[in-house]
């Protein structure tokens, strides 16, 4: 019986390959393959890809909640920027730390996790022609995450959790704070389970042919890293919650730091993997780019899975009680193999765009392909800016500050938030914004309003974040601490120039906030009053390029691609990297000897 069913499945699978969409191939009982189902899916009017309606629903609510948390975090952000801008110094210290706690959790945890669950549901359904595994599981996941996030935000506003994102023990918050975080983490794990279950069903019932698409592969890498990160979260948060209830003794502060950052830093690697998957996705949607070599791109994602999980050490480089050997091995992700992965993606993403543009006839000079690129498409400009900010500012500073000894002149200064706002905001958040410019037309089926404003939004946001990150980095090099409401009490320790850089931080923060606000207004406005595009291809940024065309092979690797523009770009990157890296060693050599 079973084998008969399986035969039937494989017949269906071969049908699917030739399936012209909507054709009647529903003779089988394959209830996982979208294109063979009578209902529960629709064919996308713009791309021809099958959209699972269950998945679409959960993508929508997760994305809407993500944007709500982005707005909450953004309002906190502008208050913080106006406080660190020393000349303004807006908030009193209690509200500064309260807003800092709110900002960290809403931006780094809620906005990103809700959006990532949406990305996962998309990557495992539409791209695999598969039905979402379970509505119930998706509801449980969403419910736990929403309730948890609500609890955390409530308890922060009640002033009972002024402990910042990291809540370093012995600092203690109200138990509801930890319980909320645990709910969000477990809810996310449940959503990730739904993703893996859908992958399994898709494979088991052969809803697609061959290997999964690269974007699904990248999303899977992100999901695997998320499981490891969230398990660390459970290990550290459950005892801390129990301690806050008075049930057990206080966990060791060093142990807390090590395991907490197993959650905290690894979550950022989830973001990196998801962001890179989105780079590939948007590059394809906007320019028709194909990976030059699937093996290389996938191999780089595998490097993330294998090596990125030991990054907890980045936060313990000048800690007591952990030895130098442990620090060196872990901080370098085992000889920087995860950095290698990012450097590979940093080449293959622009190179694939260059090849696609040249193939379409934009062959003038070295950079003719780049000037002719679809800059009027905000999704495209968002990911270009995301690649540049992530690589040139976030990546270079991150590896340098995470060098064991250089961390002595960087730890807990503003250089650290200067770095991670370039990775997680200029990189991840901007990439998520770029993708949203397609999520709304394709999955909410509304064409964007005010397209001109949308076109400048990524530039405004990216410009603000860049200015803010650079201001932070320079102020941090002069010793200004992060997470401090006011530097006035130690004013004589800093040069006058520090106010220029803190001013840059403030102005950059204002610009980035305006960019964020514009994004939220455009997106929410489109959802409310945008013109429906149901039944026709999306209009706002033109139809996604090249999708559904099978005439050009997707694996590449056969022919050698010429990408002179990309070669020059990565060359500039490597030089900038080396200059910044060795300049920091030189600066380190100037401080007092210590061991």
């Amino acid at each position, binding site marked *: 019986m079973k084998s008969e069913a399986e035969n039937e499945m494989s017949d269906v699978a071969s049908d699917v390959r030739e399936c012209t969409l909507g054709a009647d191939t529903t003779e089988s009982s394959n209830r996982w393959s979208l294109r063979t189902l009578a209902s529960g899916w629709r064919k996308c009017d713009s791309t021809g890809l099958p959209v699972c309606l269950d998945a679409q629903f959960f993508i929508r609510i997760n994305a809407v909640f993500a944007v709500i948390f982005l707005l909450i975090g953004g309002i906190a952000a502008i208050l913080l920027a106006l406080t660190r801008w020393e000349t303004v110094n807006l908030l009193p210290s209690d509200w500064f730390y309260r807003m800092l706690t709110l900002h960290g959790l809403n931006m780094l945890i809620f906005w990103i996790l809700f959006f990532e669950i949406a990305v996962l549901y998309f990557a495992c359904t539409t791209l695999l022609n598969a039905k979402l595994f379970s509505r119930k599981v998706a509801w449980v996941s969403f419910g736990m995450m929403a309730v948890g996030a609500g609890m955390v935000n409530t308890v922060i506003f009640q002033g009972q959790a002024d402990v910042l994102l990291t809540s370093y023990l012995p600092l203690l918050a109200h138990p509801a704070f930890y319980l909320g975080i645990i709910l969000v983490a477990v809810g996310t794990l449940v959503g990730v389970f739904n993703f893996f279950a859908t992958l399994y069903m898709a494979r088991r019932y052969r809803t697609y042919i061959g290997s999964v698409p690269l974007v699904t592969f990248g999303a899977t890498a992100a999901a695997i890293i998320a499981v490891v990160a969230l398990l660390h979260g459970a290990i550290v948060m459950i005892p801390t919650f129990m301690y806050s209830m008075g049930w057990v003794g206080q966990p060791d*502060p060093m142990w807390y730091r090590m395991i907490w950052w197993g959650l905290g830093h690894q979550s950022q690697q989830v973001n990196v993997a998801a962001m890179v998957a989105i780079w590939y996705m948007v590059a394809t949607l906007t320019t028709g780019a194909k990976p030059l070599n699937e093996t290389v791109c996938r191999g780089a994602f595998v490097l993330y899975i294998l090596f990125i999980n030991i990054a907890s050490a980045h936060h313990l480089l000048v800690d007591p009680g952990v030895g*130098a050997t442990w620090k060196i091995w872990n901080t370098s992700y085992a000889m920087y193999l995860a950095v290698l992965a990012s450097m590979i993606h940093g080449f293959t993403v622009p190179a694939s765009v260059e090849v696609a543009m040249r193939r379409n006839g934009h062959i003038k000079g070295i950079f003719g392909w780049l000037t002719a690129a679809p800059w009027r498409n905000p999704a495209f400009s968002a990911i270009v800016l995301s690649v540049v900010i992530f690589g040139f500012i976030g990546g270079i500073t991150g590896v340098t500050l995470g060098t064991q000894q250089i961390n002595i002149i960087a730890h807990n*200064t503003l250089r650290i938030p200067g770095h991670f706002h370039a990775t997680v905001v200029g990189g991840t958040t901007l990439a998520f914004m770029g993708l949203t410019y397609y999520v709304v037309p394709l999955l909410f089926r509304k064409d964007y309003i005010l397209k001109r404003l949308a076109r400048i939004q990524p530039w405004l946001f990216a410009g603000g974040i860049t200015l803010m990150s650079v201001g932070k980095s320079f102020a941090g090099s002069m010793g200004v601490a992060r997470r*401090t409401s006011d530097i006035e009490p130690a004013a004589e320790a800093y040069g006058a120039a520090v106010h220029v850089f803190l001013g840059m931080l403030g102005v950059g923060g204002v610009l980035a906030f305006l960019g964020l606000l514009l994004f939220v207004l455009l997106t929410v406005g489109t959802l409310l009053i945008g013109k429906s595009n149901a039944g026709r291809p999306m209009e706002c940024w033109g139809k996604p390029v090249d999708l559904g065309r099978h005439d050009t092979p997707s694996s590449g690797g056969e022919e050698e691609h010429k990408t002179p523009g990309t070669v020059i770009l990565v060359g500039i990157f490597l030089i900038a990297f080396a200059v910044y890296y060795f300049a920091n060693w030189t600066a380190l050599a100037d401080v007092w000897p210590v061991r």
Partner: protein
Amino acid sequence: MSLESPEKDWFKSPKGTERVWIGIALAWCLVMFLMMPYWHLFGKQNSTGEAYKVEPRQFEERVNQFVEANQVGELDGVPVVEPAPGGEAYLLARMWSWYPVLKLRAGETYRLHISSLDLQHGISLLPMNMNFQVLPGYDHVLTITPTSAGEYTIVCNEFCGIGHSLMVGKLIVE
């Protein structure tokens, strides 16, 4: 096409510039990795993480003994303490002050014990911008050689409650 399944025979080694770039990137990663052990052998600024378990109260007692034995003056109500050149020095972090004010000699090497009485703190030595973590229960030992004379500021750079930004101390080098 990143949104579609690749062709069956996608497993291929990279070619051309992509291959060269992977090689260069790998070489650069190894250079960066080797810099760290190199600096431990030949560089002068390292964090070895030398630390000993200590009860906060016990550490406070040691600091008090150290202050009693070596006090040379007072600055804004805080004792100024001059440890023997090349000897042990103690610094206590607590909400929200550094205790005591240390007076060191340029060119001498000290074993500086730092720990916290309550929450986590961070020592940031300014304008040098040298930073280390301070944890309760851990006696963090920095073997440090001040090389330049002057009056230095110590600020706390780990969030430690509402008065965190007021946690400012002094260190004098002669």
